[in-house]
């Protein structure tokens, strides 16, 4: 089997716990998995990496029996395995915790852990036994939680751990975690990793899917990279430098950044563009010789350097003076000029999203003043804001952004239609044209404009959401965590897009918890701390270090 040119000698180890050979799966004419091989050893944490669409999810769905494979072979402990459902796979010893935590919200922790495999007494469910078992499973993870609590009342982190406890309650030999950290904060992630190490040391094999480079280096023993439905590399983590990993994932040159050349390699955030400017062509080992980066947004300048602060226009597009809202914002001053991207930085809970809500008319400020385009501005609803040319892509794309059952085109045209009102209709042709134009401009990868938006990858959904607002020709675009949960390539595409938008005169408010992103994308950053705007960093002094200092400073 072609295994890429960077496979180490794992293959020759004594039989692995799980062996996947030549696994293939097609959806229509698209290959989701093309003769993929994967070995997972006992007592190891194995990271599965790759961009969106690389085939990670499909691989896991095949392994858990949620999706039937076209060809290929699974062996668990040397014996053939042919799971037909998640339950079936569980019976064989493969337990999975999916990305969207799959628990029953209004049942207790104990019930969630034992549901479907309860202990019985006199023909009825033995609640005491369920409680004991759940307590045991939770204790195995090194936690102490009241197992009679209802799951919906627990934090996401606890829910994640409950899902893992459930997965381990059967005699799991392989635990699959599909992006388990995407909704966890730093401490929660650390706690999860501690748990994973403990489980590994007890002999469990863990297959761990993630986007975050830092986490892979923190916890994984082995790394397997998939790209474009193919296996690219499997190596021990220690033998897989970051830059090589990233280039294996992307299969293309990494764009170096001019902003944080002086940052040491060990203090890196996962964002790859903060890499020291190594000559990318030397670092990339591209086994399949993929074509160079073609992401459709050729109109945008490459983000090799952050846009130079042009002389600030005298007129502000948006300005906020001492805006406050009880329980949400204490004091915010902010200004954005046309053609300027302003970053909003701060820790979670510092008031970033809350401020965006006020600007977009979702909440009304108690005091302070706002002006837009020189006119007083106090939107009473998003409708007001949209009518004044303000657009917002929300943080939670799935819940607040896309309408999953509508097509890509319909999703793109939603806001435009809202702006026009119900009575002014657009001709079918014009709708087609607008959508097609934006799809091309933004490089939205979809089977067709008529495909349901839910079928797109996260990055492409985000692009379609951006397209929706661009269709309304806004003056000010608020982006709340636009790159969360999307892969590195899509992140770069979105950053390039922002650069091209501001060069067209749009004002952008860019909210992100990833400082490198703010530093790359924005000309100025406003720092929020404890629901107050505390600092503004602009021009050459806009570096991650300066922003972090502002966030960390105590009064």
């Amino acid at each position, binding site marked *: 089997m072609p295994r890429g040119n960077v496979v180490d000698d794992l293959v020759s180890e004594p039989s692995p716990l799980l062996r996947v050979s030549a696994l293939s799966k097609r959806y229509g004419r698209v290959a989701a998995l093309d003769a993929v091989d994967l070995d997972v050893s006992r007592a190891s944490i194995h990271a599965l990496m790759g961009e969106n669409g690389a085939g990670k999810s499909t691989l896991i769905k095949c392994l858990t029996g949620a999706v039937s494979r076209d060809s290929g072979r699974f062996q668990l402990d040397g014996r053939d395995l042919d799971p037909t459902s*998640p339950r079936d796979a569980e019976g064989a010893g493969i337990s999975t915790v999916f990305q969207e935590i*799959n628990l029953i*919200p209004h*049942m207790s922790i104990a019930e*969630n852990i034992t*549901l*479907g495999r*309860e202990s019985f007494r006199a023909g009825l*469910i033995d609640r005491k036994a369920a409680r004991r078992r759940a307590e045991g499973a939770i204790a195995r993870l090194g936690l102490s939680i009241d197992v009679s609590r209802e799951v919906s009342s627990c934090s996401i982190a606890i829910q994640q751990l409950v899902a893992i406890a459930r997965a381990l309650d059967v005699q799991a030999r392989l635990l699959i975690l599909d992006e388990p950290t995407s909704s966890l904060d730093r401490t929660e992630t650390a706690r999860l990793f501690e748990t994973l190490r403990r489980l590994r040391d007890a002999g469990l094999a863990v297959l761990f899917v993630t986007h975050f480079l830092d986490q892979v280096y923190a916890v994984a023993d082995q790394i397997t990279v998939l790209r474009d439905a193919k296996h690219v590399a499997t190596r021990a983590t220690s033998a897989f430098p970051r830059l090589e990993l990233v280039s294996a994932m992307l299969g293309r040159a990494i764009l170096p950044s001019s902003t944080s050349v002086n940052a040491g390699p060990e203090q890196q955030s996962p964002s790859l563009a903060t890499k020291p400017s190594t000559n990318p062509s030397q670092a990339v080992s591209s086994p399949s010789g993929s074509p160079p980066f073609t992401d459709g947004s050729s109109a945008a300048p490459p983000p090799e350097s952050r846009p130079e602060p042009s002389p600030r226009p005298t007129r502000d597009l948006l300005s906020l003076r001492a805006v406050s809202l009880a329980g949400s914002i204490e004091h915010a001053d902010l200004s954005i000029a046309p053609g300027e991207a302003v970053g909003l930085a701060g820790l979670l809970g510092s008031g970033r999203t809350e401020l965006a809500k006020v600007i977009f008319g979702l909440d009304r400020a108690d005091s302070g003043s706002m002006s837009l385009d020189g006119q007083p501005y106090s939107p009473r609803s998003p409708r007001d804001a949209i009518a004044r040319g303000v657009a917002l892509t929300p943080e939670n794309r799935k819940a607040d952004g896309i309408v999953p059952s509508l097509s890509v085109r319909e999703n793109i045209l939603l806001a435009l239609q809202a702006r026009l009102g119900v009575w002014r209709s657009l001709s079918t042709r014009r709708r087609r044209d607008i959508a097609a134009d934006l799809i091309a401009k933004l490089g939205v990868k979809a089977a067709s404009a008529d495909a349901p938006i839910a079928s797109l990858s996260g990055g492409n959904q985000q692009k379609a959401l951006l397209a929706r607002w661009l269709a309304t020709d806004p003056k000010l675009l608020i982006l709340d965590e636009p790159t969360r949960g999307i892969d590195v390539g899509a992140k770069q595409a979105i950053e390039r897009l922002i650069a091209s938008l501001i060069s067209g005169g749009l004002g952008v408010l860019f909210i992100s918890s990833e400082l490198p992103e703010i530093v790359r994308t924005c000309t100025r950053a406003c720092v929020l701390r404890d629901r107050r705007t505390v600092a503004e960093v602009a021009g050459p002094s806009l570096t991650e270090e300066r922003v972090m200092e502002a966030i960390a400073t105590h009064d």
Partner: protein
Amino acid sequence: MIRVARRYVPILTTLALVVATFVAGSLAYPNFASAGVVRNLLVDNAFLAVAAVGATFVILSGAIDLSVGSVMAFTSILIARLIEHHAVHPLAAIALSLLAGAVFGLAQGLIIDLFKLPPFLVTLAGMFFARGAAFLIHPQSIGIKHPFVANVLNDQLSLRLPFGERGVSIPITVDIAIVTIALAAVVLRSTRFGRSVHAVGDDESSALLMGLNIRATRLGVFTLSGLCSALAGIVFTLYQQSGDPAACKGFELDAIAAVVIGGTLLRGGIGSVLGTALGVLLLGLIQTIITFQGDLSSWWTRIAVGLLVLAFVALQGQLSKRDE
């Protein structure tokens, strides 16, 4: 503490309303708080209670069954015809009609599951189908005069309680309703099927990924609903001492109202049979009060029910909003 209490808010509200309504009735009308009135309350609502138990399962699982009233009518005319025209023993007729109800429910479940059709539409079709079939069996109502029904079922098997001057006799229909409620409560709480019903209604995709058998659960729910509809039809027939193909039109909506007033979430996942029983009692009490008032048209009951349903839907909306 508050969180736990919150899920019990609807059922506690219902309980409070039942008590308050009863107290109000007792204060307003002499003789209201008597064994006879309570007896009638139970007797008149036994078949609603049985039907509502089935509806509780269906609604808890996140589905709906609109065929309840028609299946009740079908059962009632089937039993009457079998007993009176074909000389079938009442017990055999009852067994047969229970089987028919269960098979009918299973068939609806199979169609919903195999063809991925919405329960609303499939059971709407089932509603018309069962109603038509009821009229095919016999186009008019048939009185049941079989001695076994009159003497054994409705008389000897009644429970005599020493309340009031002449004692109160509780007919078997009330026993059936109480046993049904008790059994359903145990099934929902302490069997894998019962927990799966909750899980499927709360979050179906999670339930699937947790390895629960969604299909078996759904088929079970609709079979049970058909069975309960048939049983409700039997109780109704014993109560009326006749079978009628035109009976119980729209009765499924009364059952759904009782379920909602009993605190079960219409989107599924949260609720209880006990709540449903309280919901039935509350509806019955309102009816009783309006009867006692005397000068009110009995249609005021429907208006009261409408307002109550609205209030409970609003309450649930508030509660689930705070849930987020």
